[in-house]
């Protein structure tokens, strides 16, 4: 038996061994994906049930206001993007635009950010507060 044959047989054995170990390791690692009880997206969506009901059914698009839009507020960039994507997913088929030039705005603001935004904003608004730092803002007068 040549060295090449030994290597070839060994390599096939290694491929099979590493396939098993990798597959098992991956299977075990799926536990880190989260709990079996409730996934984060569903949890997130339940926060929007009341806000969605409060939004007129004919609404096609809403503006979006979050901590990253309020000057002087510190925020985590990754979290802001993640929450924005999840809010769009939850509110589908309403378009959530990163713009405040809409009749309806969805606010995802910490208390401090909301206070700051309110002080610096001109115009007339009706604001409904929902839990989890969520606001539905209706622009009454631009």
């Amino acid at each position: 038996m040549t060295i090449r044959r030994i290597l070839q047989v060994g390599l096939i054995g290694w491929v099979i061994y590493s396939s098993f170990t990798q597959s098992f390791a991956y299977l075990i690692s799926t536990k880190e994906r989260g709990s079996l009880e409730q996934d984060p997206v569903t949890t997130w969506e339940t926060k929007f049930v009341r806000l969605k009901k409060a939004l007129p059914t004919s609404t096609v698009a809403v503006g979006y206001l979050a901590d990253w839009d309020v000057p002087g507020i510190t925020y985590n960039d990754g979290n802001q993007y993640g929450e924005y994507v999840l809010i769009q997913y939850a509110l589908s088929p309403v378009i959530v635009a990163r713009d405040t030039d809409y009749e309806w705005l969805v606010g995802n603001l910490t208390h401090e950010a909301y206070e700051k935004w309110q002080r610096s904003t001109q115009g007339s608004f009706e604001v409904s507060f929902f839990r989890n730092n969520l606001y539905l803002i209706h622009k009454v007068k631009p």
Partner: protein
Amino acid sequence: MTLLSLALYSIPAIIGALMVHIIWRGTNSKIILVKISLGVGIGMGITSLLYFLFLFTQQSWFLILLFGIALLFAFLAFRVWQPFDPTHNEPFSPLQKVLFSILAVIIIIDLAAFISTSMRIPHGAWDSWAIWNRVARFIFRSGEDWQRIFSGEFDWLFHADYPLLVPLTTAWVWDVLNVETQKAPMIQAAIFLFLCGLLLFSALFATRSLGTACLATIVLLANPEYIGISSVQLADTPLAFFIAATAILYVLYDKYRQPQMMVLAGMTTALAAWTKNEGWVFMAGSLAGLFIISYKNESAWRLAGWYAAGIALPIAIVLFHKLVLAPTNDIYDQSSVEIMTKLFDFARYGMIAREFGVALFTFGGWGFNAPALLAYYIIMKSKSSDSTPLSRGVLTVLIILLVQLLGYFATYLVTPRDLEWHLAFSLTRIIYHVFPTALFLLFLVTDTPESIFSQLKNSNTVIQQGF
């Protein structure tokens, strides 16, 4: 809902398998599985295109249409039916049985991993919420106003220009069931996860041996990147499937010489473009493949004609989506000066090349990254090898892989996004697009396990005789 969704997805699978059999009438029994795997993928893709057209009618009898098409294809398949030639009468060797059993165990582990992932994150991962499942929700929830998915009001994060194969494959099942169940995108993901494996297995079984087919499929399905990405309802696995399917069709054409196979290659190319924008990059690779396979071939124009017949209709629909409905892709939403500046910024070339190198070295964990696959090639490609020489089919696959990777390199060069961020968030996934095709090529040109072990057995016999 799981069984209902599964039952509904079996309709396009049957339509596709019948269609493939009607177009490619080969009766070699070794290609039955290839036809089935190709058919399921093509059927899923064609059904999503049909549903896209159907949305314009604002009707609700899509299921009836599918049943009608299935019956028509069943009738046509019955008319052209010929019995398959039994070409494999030898019993399986112990080695083949062992490898097949190992593959079965890996499939069970993958299934468990898929179920565990799907139960923990039923809505998938970031891109599933941002793009694929979100678009499916918009289509299902908007009703007549479904074209809202193309609105220019979406932030670039939501990629409103992306192709629709995956979201429409979810949406038509929701439409038929009239329920928005997450089981539909989950089952779709599971189908493509195992379909890619079946395609690789069947193609290598047809071209090499059962042992090679098992070993290659084990490597694919055991790859943590593969099972990880395939489990979270993204469009990357369907794209990897259509790329591999086209490459495999070119190699099989080289073996069986049935020009109708080019119809299928045309279809799979168009469906790649209907799956992800990277599919447009693949179109260049597929056309290069067609050129190589037809070069100095007496029936080159005929082959091109068959290919055109397969690609024409689906690509017309894809182009209609791209040019008429979808907003401009963010890459083209920049001035030519900006693009030229990036093209002449040589630091970008270095950065992309370095990151490609790192990704190729780390892809798939410690098991099957590029150096491991290269080592496999060096050790398993012996001089006395029975493996496929550098045939036209092999060259075609090599060129397809090269064009695809070069296309991705060029895309990174001109990306309007922060390059470092773009590379970090997408490079592994785009290497993954060519992984099944690369595995097919590797196992196509290396020694089969059967030949290695039979020579081992012979040498042992010689040694015993010597004593």
